[in-house]
């Protein structure tokens, strides 16, 4: 049995080698058949077929046909990845109904799992139970037991907010709600391997959590799906940090010019998401901070002078944002 098996394997190996050799010989034969003044063109065409197949680039050729003869080619495999994302752009018309449903859904789920720690209680339902609070102005040391979680804008706060040695920052360019749990972005002192935000949050307790995320998700999914993910992430953070005050910062608006640029980032889309985020605040341990008050003009868009690309605050205007946070520290009224 053994002998037979190894022989079989050997034969198979032999056959494999000859196949590869044959292949090489075949390619070489083809190569020699191509006239030398056409070799580049030939390779270019072959690679082109490979490239267009691998990237789905045939759509550039097929789509015009498809549009022309939609009736006939409806059966072709769907390759539209780009347009799908575009559709994710929020439409205000349908938004009204979605917005009201969204925050409710995760809270229902959580109520089933863990009814005692439900952070999503509607503030309107139990106004009496809510501890009253007010916003106070604080100094930098307030942030000593705080963590900032966010995307490249929070990276800007890290670099130019003057809080590098005071607070913890779990921030990275391109961070999304989902990546919080998958992307290894947090450095651990003395360790080479980075860990995810989730792992970092379960390892260390904070008193305040500043959370701003969402601009990167504008292009994928809908406002509804984003808010669902967002609510879930707040839920997870709540579970891991039961004693922390969670500050949900509204997604910072972009400039009017950037908003009108014609891609998925629009101030309307941001506003809809912010409304949903604001509804997650229970004003007990979870608070909504409308940081846009600090950086936006009367039109509700980021002031153009504050930014180069219309999205990120310039370093010298980061203090506006920081000062807003400093003047909005929650103090519970006794």
């Amino acid at each position, binding site marked *: 049995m053994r002998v037979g098996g190894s022989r079989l394997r050997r034969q198979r190996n032999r056959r494999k080698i000859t196949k590869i050799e044959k292949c090489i010989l075949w390619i070489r034969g083809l*190569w020699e058949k191509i*006239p*030398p*003044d*056409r*070799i*580049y*063109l030939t*390779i*270019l065409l*072959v*690679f*082109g077929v*490979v*490239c267009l197949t691998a*990237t789905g*680039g045939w759509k*550039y*050729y097929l789509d015009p046909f498809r549009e022309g003869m939609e009736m006939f080619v409806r059966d072709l495999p769907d390759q539209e990845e780009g347009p799908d994302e575009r559709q994710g752009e929020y439409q205000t018309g349908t938004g009204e109904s979605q917005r009201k449903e969204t925050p409710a859904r995760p809270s229902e789920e959580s109520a089933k799992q863990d009814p005692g720690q439900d952070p999503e209680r509607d503030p309107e339902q139990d106004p009496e139970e809510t501890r009253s609070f007010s916003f106070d102005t604080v100094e930098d040391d307030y942030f000593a037991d705080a963590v900032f979680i966010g*995307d*490249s*804008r929070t990276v*800007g706060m890290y*670099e*130019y907010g*003057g809080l590098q040695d005071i607070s913890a920052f779990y921030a990275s*360019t*391109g961070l999304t709600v989902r990546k919080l749990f998958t992307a290894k972005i947090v450095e651990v002192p003395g360790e080479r391997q980075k860990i995810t935000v989730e792992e970092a949050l379960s390892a260390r307790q904070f008193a305040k959590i500043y959370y701003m995320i969402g*601009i*990167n998700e504008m292009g994928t999914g809908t406002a509804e799906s984003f808010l669902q993910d967002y609510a879930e992430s707040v839920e997870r953070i709540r579970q891991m940090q039961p004693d922390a005050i969670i500050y949900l910062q509204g997604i910072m608006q972009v400039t009017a010019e950037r908003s009108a640029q014609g*891609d998925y980032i629009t101030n309307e889309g941001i506003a809809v998401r912010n409304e949903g985020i604001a509804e997650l605040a229970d004003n007990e341990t979870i608070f909504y901070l409308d940081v846009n008050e600090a950086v936006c003009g009367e039109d509700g868009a980021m002031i153009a002078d504050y*930014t*180069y*690309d219309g*999205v*990120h605050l*310039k*370093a*010298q*205007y980061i203090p506006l944002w920081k000062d807003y946070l400093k003047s909005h520290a929650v103090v519970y009224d006794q």
Partner: protein
Amino acid sequence: MVFCSIEFLLYFLPAFFIFYALTPKRFKNVVLLAASLVFYALGEPRYLFLLLASVTVNHFVGRFLGAEPYYKDRYQGTGKYSTYLEWRKGVLLFAITGNVGILFLFKVAMRGEALPLGVSFYTFQILSYLFDVYQGIIPAERSLIKTAAYVTMFPQLISGPIVNYGEVSAAMSERRMSWQSVQNGLKLFTLGLVAKVLIADRVGILWNDVQVRGIESISTPLAWLGAIAYSFKIYFDFYGYSLMAMGLGGMMGFRFPENFRNPYMAVSVRDFYRRWHITLGRWFCNYIYIPLGGNRRGELCTARNLLIVWALTGLWHGGSGNFLLWGILLWVLIVIERQIKIFLDRHPIGGESIWKQMRLVPHLYVWAVIPFTWMCFAITDVRELSVYLGRMLGAVPQSAVQPNDWRAALHTYGGLLAVAFIASTPLIRRLYRRWRDSAFTNVILAALFWICVWRIMVEGDNPFLYFKF
């Protein structure tokens, strides 16, 4: 339309060359002209009429200017000949005023808003044609189709090189498109595409990064990194376009002049601008500098002529003040370099050998000065420009600066900057000349071509669009 777009690479390029190759010889110019107009209209339909009008009027101006031998033969010595000569001068002046006036109107008066695509290039090309005809260097082209095809030819319509008619007039009537020319042209085109998409657009992100941070708040090393990144970006952008133009022209059997010759390997600013955008430098030299007297009327006059040339060069690039500043700054440097050279020629210090031993010093000088001047070119707001130059020179910052911000930038972009530097040396060109037809080169170039196409598919025309926040 631009070369590095899906529309051009996947539709226009193959469609045009297949159609062009199948066209009988005597219709090739018509097809080239028609395709070029389509190419132009797809990018800027509004100014197609301006382009057509400009070409037509200037064609007939050219024919009038070129009729001099005819009048000389028939009417020399008579009043008719001298009247013609007077009219000839007048028509030339009128044509210059008209062409330059339109350019000036769009560049300066309208502050560069709504600038017709390629107007700076085709106006200069037309003017070079008229001047050459006027001076009798070339005969006037009789066929409107050929003049129009020469000016609007899509490979060089939008961003050069500025081809003299003498260089292509023979090819306008008789050129050969062969498998070999298509293959070599496509390879050159690929090199240009790689320079644009894989180098210029990538290093451009670092330059963008610096500005997003806010130029008030960058450290001095980061300000230099940003300036270096911009220097590479503008070079590979422009060089890439020139290479693509040469490649496309070469495919059809044209030979376009070389536009760049490793400018960052220059040893002085003068040397740099003999290697940078050569066809524009040549234009200013032939049609402004030399008619003004060049360098033959003493140093003072030379300095004046250079000043005129550089102020105009600045204006040609754009109407705002920073371009003028850029031109003047270069003029100052060039005049100083001239004087130093004259001084050294008269009083040789340590002889020639000492300068040959210090070969790196002139390079270091160029690498320090050129990024600095590029910033005057890049930042159109004069107040911002002064802030940036202040940061480069280490002036006291107005806002909080992270002293280590450059480390992260160097970490991310260091490799790319090194690649860009190597690509700025003559190395790649030498390797390409030596190994152009090897199987390895063929495979690598074809792969790079499609990698570029794939990048464009992902990013669109704008590499910052899909930039993550």
